[in-house]
């Protein structure tokens, strides 16, 4: 998986900064799949009923093309975290317009914009454990799904967000550090802390899972 720190990405950024249009396109295209996966994970179910994650990806990439020259001048973040932030902003905006506007229109109580991971993480386990091969494997996964779902729901938001970033989005520590605005060392210790808390919630039940 490509990350913002890959030499290839850095080379492409340098070429893009020199006006290489093909490099610009390659930069955006190489992260499209990761971006779609991230959006699909975090997209509110009500929003997902109205549009596909691929549409959000395309709109994000169109915005990225528009903003790329400014990014190349300043490079405030590694490339993928920057691109991801554009997608999060787009998703938040869509949520506000489509979901919250709908709530207002029916005069329901208006809430703050939900943290994307906070709301959708509760459904993550359900979505992610949906696959399975044999009936017994599916049954086992089904049992595990319930446990993980409960544990994720009980985790504090910072712990859950760290696990989502590291294990579901599979961002490397360097990118997580950029996304959260903390050091790489802090990512390691927060990851460890989140794992301990997840273990505390799951520990005994996962005893049989240990290889």
């Amino acid at each position, binding site marked *: 998986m490509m990350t913002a720190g890959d030499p290839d990405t850095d080379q492409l950024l340098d070429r893009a900064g020199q006006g290489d*249009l093909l490099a*610009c396109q390659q930069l955006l295209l190489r992260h*499209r799949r990761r971006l779609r996966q991230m959006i699909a994970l975090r997209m509110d179910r009500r929003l997902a009923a109205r549009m596909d994650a691929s549409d959000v990806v395309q709109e994000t990439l169109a915005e990225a093309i528009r903003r790329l020259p400014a990014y190349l001048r300043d490079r405030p973040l590694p490339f993928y975290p920057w691109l991801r932030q554009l997608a999060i902003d787009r998703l938040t905006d869509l949520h506000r317009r489509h979901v919250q506007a709908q709530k207002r229109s029916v005069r329901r109580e208006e809430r703050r914009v939900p943290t994307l991971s906070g709301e959708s993480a509760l459904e993550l386990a359900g979505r992610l454990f949906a696959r399975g091969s044999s009936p017994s494997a599916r049954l086992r996964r089904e049992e595990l799904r319930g446990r993980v779902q409960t544990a994720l729901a009980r985790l504090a938001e910072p712990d859950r967000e760290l696990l989502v970033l590291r294990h579901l989005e599979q961002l490397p520590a360097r990118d997580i550090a950029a996304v959260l605005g903390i050091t790489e060392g802090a990512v*390691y210790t927060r990851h460890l802390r989140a794992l301990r808390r997840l273990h505390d919630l799951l520990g005994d039940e996962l*005893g049989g899972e240990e290889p």
Partner: protein
Amino acid sequence: MNPSLGAPERTGSEDQALGVLVEELTARLQAGEPVDVQAFIRGHPEHAAELRQLLPALHVLADLGHSADGDATAAGRPTVAAADVMGTLGDFRIVREIGRGGMGVVYEAVQISLGRRVALKVLPFAGRWIPSSCSASKTSPRRRPGCTTPTSCRSTSWAASAECTSMPCSSSRARPSPP
């Protein structure tokens, strides 16, 4: 470090060292690399107890990650036999030509990164990377996301190396509006 699993007393530096080990294990598991867990633990006896304790959760999370990755490329996406492919253009595998007009050509294609079938409109003025010049292509047609007929779908992509737009299609036989 107190190896007691109930209430271990840890220092910041011990946590930092253990965090680095956990990160190494995570990266290897995510890469699908076979990990000799026992050998790994033997190599770090000072953290053996807690590594053993955290491994099940790490495995579950690695499985979650792989499932997520698999879902992103799961079945249900259109596949095209190699023999049917006319060639590639950027992120698009061109399947066949489905329309031609004065301003360009429309192809049935598969968007490789997303694995979906699209109608691809290619304009003959490749190489001009001027967003404003593509505005008409980007906005026409634009009525609703997704589509059952290409005449009522929205443009969802455009490439910098060649002026083109793509529209997700559910019917490869339906004909789009003239480019």
